[in-house]
């Protein structure tokens, strides 16, 4: 039972993080390895807003969410906008460099000490028993709920809204989309904003649960095998991939070796790359060279 709860929570964590990878990749074919750092930035932004709007959790959460949207747009406008049209390697490296810069900048601004944003927010995080047998924390349950809501909204947005349709069109054929009058740069910026937003949501919820320090960027990196296993351009795939990775990780930790936790997602990834490189639900594509 406890294992099952652990699997659900970890699946939700990975799913919430990996949808950020999928959003950007689906629209602009860029693998954003700075996602972990953006997550961390979102959590630190909450820390700051919690200090500013002291004792008002809702307002500070809303401010942090708005700021993370702005961060996503800024990243696109100042960095990725200039990297469009360059090689895959250059774009990926730009995101890695961004991640390094953000991590350094965060340590400069907020210091590298471990923080507990939940204390500043003025809410508690009680342990909750589920069906008597298993335990988890309130924030973990919240994380599962948020992941569910985010996925439902993203699905509806991509499927039925006009902007979602535009995003899919740009992802499929940027040139044709541009000729039909869709503002490609606007769409790309939107994808980055949404991705930074969902990442920040994941970062905030994780930091409420287990505190906040520089290791969070690594958590973000661990989630990207989930996105790739499911298929980098499929939201449903990200959910399935998260489930597969989470099940493997929890079972390996429980039955084999706790140290495996950091390697487990990548073991799944290697197996997937050997069998079906484009993932469970991804589209097979001809990749360009360096």
């Amino acid at each position, binding site marked *: 039972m406890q294992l099952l709860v652990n699997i659900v929570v970890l699946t939700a964590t990975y799913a919430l993080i990996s949808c950020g990878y999928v959003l950007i990749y689906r629209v602009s074919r860029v693998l954003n390895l700075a996602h972990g750092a953006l997550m961390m930035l979102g959590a630190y932004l909450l820390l700051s807003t919690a200090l500013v709007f002291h004792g008002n959790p809702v307002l500070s959460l809303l401010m942090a969410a708005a700021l993370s949207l702005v961060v996503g747009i800024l990243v696109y406008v100042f960095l990725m906008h200039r990297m469009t049209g360059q090689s*895959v390697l250059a774009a990926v490296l730009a995101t890695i460099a961004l991640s*390094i810069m953000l991590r*350094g900048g965060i340590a*400069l601004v907020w210091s590298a000490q471990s923080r507990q944003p939940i204390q500043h927010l003025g809410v508690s995080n009680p342990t909750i028993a589920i069906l008597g047998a298993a335990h988890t924390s309130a924030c973990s349950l919240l994380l599962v709920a948020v992941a569910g809501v985010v996925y439902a909204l993203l699905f509806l947005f991509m499927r039925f809204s006009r902007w979602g349709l535009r995003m899919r069109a740009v992802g499929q054929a940027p040139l044709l989309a541009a000729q039909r009058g869709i503002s490609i740069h606007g769409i790309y910026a939107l994808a980055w904003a949404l991705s930074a937003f969902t990442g920040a949501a994941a970062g905030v919820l994780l930091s409420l649960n287990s505190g906040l320090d520089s290791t969070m960027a690594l958590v973000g990196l661990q989630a990207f095998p989930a996105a790739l296993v499911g298929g980098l351009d499929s939201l449903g795939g990200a959910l399935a991939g998260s489930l597969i990775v989470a099940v493997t990780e929890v079972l390996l930790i429980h039955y084999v070796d706790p140290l495996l936790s950091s390697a487990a997602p990548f073991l799944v*990834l290697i197996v997937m790359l050997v069998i079906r490189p484009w993932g469970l639900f991804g589209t097979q594509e001809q990749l360009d060279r360096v």
Partner: protein
Amino acid sequence: MFSRTPRPATRRLPIPAWVLRAIASRRGRLGLAVGAAALLVIPFVASSYELDLANQVLLASVGALALMLLTGFAGQISLGHAGLMAAGAFTVGIAYKEFGAPFWVALPASAVLGAMLGLIFGLPSVRLRGLYLAVSTLALHFVVIYLCGEYETNRAMSSAIMVNAPVVFGHQIYGDRIWYFLLLAAVVVTLILCANLLRSRTGRAWGAIRTNETVAAAMGINVPRYKLLAFVISATVTTVSGALFAYQRGFVSVDAFSFYLTIQYVAMIIIGGMPSLAGALLGATFIVLLPHAIQGVLLPMLGADNPGSAFAAIYAAFGAVMIFFLMFEPRGLLGAWRRIQRRLRFKRVPLGEVSE
């Protein structure tokens, strides 16, 4: 199509092209002599801090050359460089701790392991390209690091594995000055190896694969074979550099081989300028010296009691420099240098005599 430098058929000596070009002119000869003399004099005039830096530069140069061969010349992206170095260092550490193996056993052992790992790291490249290849090498990096961490936790009580200074011909190799010459020799050997490979059939095959895989296959090049060869050779050199790192430091710890180290090596070849062997050396020098330069500027400003934020500033500045090069100077330092050179030349030569 495959290379920009002309290849006269008479060139058979194992010497890089730019050295030969330099020897051809009097000014080039002078420059070479001064450079060589400077390299030999450094260990006798430098302070121990500067000598340590020089050793770091030389060590990084070996690794950067290996990565340049793979990514710059063969066009295969790898994000598993730190994993390979860790494998080399841990081969030395384990061979020493478990069997007390001497230098001349542990070093070849790490090279053999490197060749095998190169084959494993390279296998995905037969099917995958670009992004997916980068991701698969990254995944292998984490697996290697996990195995090393596992060994460190279980056998060394989570602390670093100590390695004694190697003994060669009855002499203990100890001290920065001896290491300087040893590492310098390693760089020269690697440089000659790379330069020769690139001038051979193999190097031309790599160039063809980098330019266009489909065309390369159509021209009769066995693409999977040469890709794997690139991975094997690069990985062998990389693990040996990891092994040298272990001996020079005197201890092995998995903490030294994070993903950040991989990024530093990738930054070296980008900032140096791809594809070029000189670019790898230039980039290695730049990346190794960059944090110390920043520290030299920042520490007086921040005050010496603030090492934590100095570290963070170095981290941030490293990212910023990398972004700068990716955005504004994708051809790296070498590209910038060529552009400056061209501009200067255009100013000096009257318009009518420009032949280019």
